[in-house]
């Protein structure tokens, strides 16, 4: 990299916190045992570290450590929860699944695969706010609904779904409830003792931990059963086989400990930065905030800039590292399916930027970003005939374009 751009893409991935890295490194160098080796201290040291980390993960979400199953990341957690529960309960509860059109691909594609295997699915459209209408959710439940999957925090627009209310509806109808919380840990308080959630997916690398490690919460009371997807040595009480990456687990534990202890202070600081960014960008004409602001994590700001072409916008703001659409799909040029589900036009979806602020963002970073956006959007609009037409008071949506 020539000159490091300012990183405002914390929802794609976070850097590993230096405290997390420091805790991980000894498990890469001295304590390298296989935690499943029961016959020598190399294995015991590793096992103890794994169990300490499990406690830290459980503590952040107020769960029992025995309810935490390690996985290689939230993608695997989502695959395991949805395939595992749907297959286990299909014969007793039925084969209908409810999810939301704005879920992460790891949920959507897993549900689609289950459709190919004979399940049916309802993909609920969110309201223009990005949130679900609870009545519509309730109406979607059928006698054969086995599972519902709704994310806690949306990765693109940062809105927080009312998991408690949705969970209560699921409980009342005997529907297993899975929540993808990959974007939520360390950002919103999660209390699984109170929340009516059966399965919850976590990721480390969105919360200043390492990549390649995640976890699935599997409720014990009332006990939820899942069919294992990864088979082998029978690790994780048979729910997930495979040698555990001790250093990564240790890293996730430490990252979640820091999240628990610092979340409140950090959120307050980040909220100030976000509000500063918001105020700065709103001074630009014709900007649209995607998703509602009230029920949203303070870290996220997703804005569409009208009369700017999406790709040229991304090229123009190379001084900052941001994302248009979610990182996982940003290799494709399709407009974000999440923004389209909110009812945004393709043009506005295309010209959207997700700014995600994090632990190491400074006020200077925010000010630089505001100045950069103001300058670049001004320049791009100068070149835009559409902007000129808009300035002249022409309603572009009513223009009849001639075909050539």
């Amino acid at each position, binding site marked *: 990299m020539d000159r490091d751009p300012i990183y405002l893409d914390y929802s794609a991935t976070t850097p590993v916190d230096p405290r997390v890295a420091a805790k991980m490194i000894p498990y890469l160098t001295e304590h390298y045992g296989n935690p499943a080796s029961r016959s020598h201290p190399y294995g015991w040291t590793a096992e103890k570290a794994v169990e300490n980390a499990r406690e830290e993960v459980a503590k952040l979400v107020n769960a029992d450590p025995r309810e935490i199953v390690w996985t290689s990341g939230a993608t695997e957690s989502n695959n395991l929860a949805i395939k595992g529960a749907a297959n286990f309960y299909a014969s007793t509860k039925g084969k209908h699944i409810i999810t939301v059109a704005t879920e992460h691909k790891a949920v959507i594609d897993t549900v689609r*695969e289950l459709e190919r295997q004979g399940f049916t699915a309802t993909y609920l459209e969110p309201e223009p706010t990005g949130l679900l209408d609870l009545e519509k959710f309730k109406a979607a439940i059928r006698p054969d609904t086995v599972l519902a999957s709704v994310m806690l925090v949306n990765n693109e627009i940062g809105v927080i779904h009312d998991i408690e209310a949705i969970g209560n509806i699921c409980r009342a109808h005997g529907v297993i409830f899975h929540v993808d919380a990959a974007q939520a840990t360390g950002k919103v308080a999660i209390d699984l003792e109170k929340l009516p959630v059966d399965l919850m997916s976590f990721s480390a690398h969105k919360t200043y931990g390492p990549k390649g490690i995640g976890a699935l919460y599997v409720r014990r009371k009332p006990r939820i059963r899942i069919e294992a997807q990864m088979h082998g*040595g029978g690790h994780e009480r048979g729910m997930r086989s495979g040698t555990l990456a001790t250093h990564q687990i240790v890293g996730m534990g430490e990252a979640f400990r820091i999240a628990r202890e610092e979340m409140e202070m950090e959120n307050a600081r980040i909220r100030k930065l976000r509000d500063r960014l918001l105020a700065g960008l709103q001074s630009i004409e014709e900007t649209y905030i995607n998703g509602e602001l009230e029920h949203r994590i303070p870290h996220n700001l997703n804005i569409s800039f009208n009369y700017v072409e999406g790709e040229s916008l991304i090229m123009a703001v190379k001084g900052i590292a941001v994302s248009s659409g979610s990182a996982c799909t940003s290799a494709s040029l399709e407009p974000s399916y999440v923004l389209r589900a909110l009812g945004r036009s393709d043009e506005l979806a295309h010209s959207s930027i997700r700014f995600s602020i994090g632990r190491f963002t400074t006020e200077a970073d925010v000010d630089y970003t505001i100045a950069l956006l103001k300058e670049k959007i001004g320049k791009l609009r100068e070149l835009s005939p559409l902007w000129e037409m808009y300035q002249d008071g022409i309603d572009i949506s009513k223009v009849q374009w001639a075909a050539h």
Partner: protein
Amino acid sequence: MSHVYFDHNATTALDSRVLKAMLPFLTTQQGNATSRHAYGRFARDAIETAREQVAKAVGAYPSQVVFTASGTEANNFAVTGMTAKQPNTQIAISAIEHPCVTRPAEIMQSRGWKLAKIGVNHQCELDFEQLENALRVPTSLVSVMLANNETGAIQNIAGVAELARKNGAYVHTDAVQAFGKIDVNFEALNVHAMTISSHKIHGPQGAGALILDKRVDIAPFMLGGGQEKGLRSGTENVAAIVGFGMACELAIEKLHEHTLHTQSLRQQLENGLQALNATIFSNHATRLPNTSFFAFHNIEGETLVMALDKKGFAVASGSACSSDSTEPSHVLLAMGIAPDLARGAIRVSFDASNTVEQVSAFLTILKQELKRLQQMVAMAA
């Protein structure tokens, strides 16, 4: 820990050069490899370099390397993915596979597939006649491991592949234990898919790969963001993949030298074991150079492992994954070893860092401990 580590088939220490390659990816700002900004591209480039290192080490093309989170995942992916798009026919595996091949195959069996478990002889060598007979039935997949994790016995995979291909079946090999210990060449083995793992070759835990002939019609195991050309979704574990790549490069660099070294340590060990009347398993088969699997009559393997541990030697009583259980090794039972003797089994697995002095010290302690345990057995009788 001042222990002497003789359990390298379970997991290996991270090479310091591997750690050095990984550290920037743990300590400085990193992007998500799917992101298009500079941070993302930096991560992407690192992954592609690692892909080339892995490919080169196993005689494959970079485009044939699909990164996974572990060997277990790659084996599950191979068994379920390579059969997913085939009509329900038969899967043939050997009786000595790792559970992460056996279990998914058994689950396919519960879904209506036929499952043939091909036996091995007393030396842990695959029974080709049995395989040939099994393949008379339409078969979609044959999966046989290259080297066994317990005995170290090496199978004739090119021969298995020839038979499988002749009968129109896909062929997969689990090369997790073999890779890094002997020369492993994807093209020469002539298989459609091959599993390797990072933490067995002084790389980090958390990375593995399925080397895959892209002509295979395979269904992805992990669904989502479409990483690895749609074959393995999930944010790439950049640090582990970078480490895996470096470990691959180092693994082939001094392979021959390391082979000679561990082989001579094993010879020294087994000379000593023979003097103590040990039964050495698979000692007439082609074996991994570093592995010795043996037992003493009337001595419980688990007890001896604990006793040796107290004296500072880390060895295994079977494969680590199952060292929880006191069931005798399924590999030894498949070889026709009596359960009583099988329960006594101990595995020593060396790497290049082990020394002649360590082996001598081990033999001295082993002799003492055996004497003590035999006296206890005699008193109890």
